[in-house]
């Protein structure tokens, strides 16, 4: 079976979280449509060379979040109305914000300075996107 889920060993997050995130992305972009059958736990374990128990954990959490539905003895499908709440990202975002605040304190920045630099970073990201879009247009 072909599977383009990629597990990164330099990603410090647990493997089951990486798998969950990538399944959600596949559902979000529509590669895996609602009602579609998804690989069985064993199939995915073999394809990724990752233990069955790790995939089982990822599927359980995905089911709990309402992304997939597991029918006993029949395998799993993408939920008819998959719940793609950004809870996972939200948690990760909070973690990073905590880190930013801590590093800012280490550098002796005021909270205003930390906020300003975060804003600048968001601005740069937006500008980058605009210029990329511009470039794409020129090429076309």
């Amino acid at each position, binding site marked *: 079976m072909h599977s383009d889920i990629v597990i990164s060993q330099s990603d410090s997050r647990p*493997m089951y979280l990486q798998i969950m995130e990538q399944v959600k992305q596949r559902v979000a972009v529509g590669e895996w449509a609602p009602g579609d059958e998804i690989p069985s736990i064993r199939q995915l374990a073999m394809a990724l060379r990752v233990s069955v128990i790790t995939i089982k954990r990822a599927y359980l959490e995905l089911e709990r979040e309402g992304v997939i539905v597991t029918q006993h003895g029949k395998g799993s499908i993408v939920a008819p109305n998959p719940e793609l709440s950004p809870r996972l990202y939200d948690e990760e975002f909070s973690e990073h914000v905590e880190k930013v605040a801590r590093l800012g304190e280490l550098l002796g920045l005021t909270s205003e300075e930390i906020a300003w630099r975060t804003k600048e970073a968001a601005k740069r990201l937006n500008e980058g996107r605009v210029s990329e879009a511009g470039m794409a247009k020129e090429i076309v």
Partner: protein
Amino acid sequence: MNELAVQFEGVGKRYKHFSLENVDLELPTGSIMGFIGANGAGKSTTIRILMGLVHQDEGSVRVLGHSMPAEQAEAKLDIGFVSEDMRLYGAATLKWHMEFMRPIYPRWDQKYAEELARRFDLKPQQKIKGLSHGQRVKAALLLALARRPRLLVLDEPTTGLDPVARVEVLSELMAALADEERTILFSSHNTLDVEQISDQITFIDRGRIIDSDDKEAFLDRWRRLRLVLPPDVAVPRLPGVVEVGGSGRLPVLTTDRFEPAMVSVCNELGAAVQAVDTMTLEEIFVANVHSRREQLTA
């Protein structure tokens, strides 16, 4: 159908300079167990007892429903065993070995054997003595896998393999598990391999099992907490702390019983939690071994 492929109860074996003591081990059918220990920790002795090659002084061993070592002949038909010191005949070819095994094992799968030879990039006509270490390991694994055994026992299968061969070997182990009735036990000191493909993990040190659990539980309950203590605040007493490192004001606590609630407990006690780090299996193993050894000498 027995739910446990392997079951050790209170197994002991004493040698002059080493003893294996009170080993309990349970391996559910259909799963992979990674068996981790330093050199000389007792991995190979445990595996030899499992195979009936060494007889335990006490305790019971059941493998695929057979009592060992009494029923080892029956059990061995269904066990594929690969170890470092396993000898293939140097003067013979891989093909000769395949033909030698074929009539002995009723479930020998010739098509699968040939397919494995292709995937492992082995030439059946080549003599064993001309093979590299990695090729020999793959040849031995091929001979074990093609018998379609219900239990695969591998003593250090990935030791000394180059990265490409390691991935090939791990892939085939996972592929073998497509059959839910098949079970694998492999020993290793490469924690990365174990962390990736194991369902169950067992640590052994100085002849004793020091921890055994399913992998997700293992990785979930070990955490390192980095704290910042105000001058007058003591290090909080938390459950399961096996190690306190860092410095006086910046202690680092390692616990094997982490609960998210610990963070708020620390904060309430005035100790700011700077970070909660997950740990790799290697870090967990080392911390585990150190704390057990300290307990023994204390």
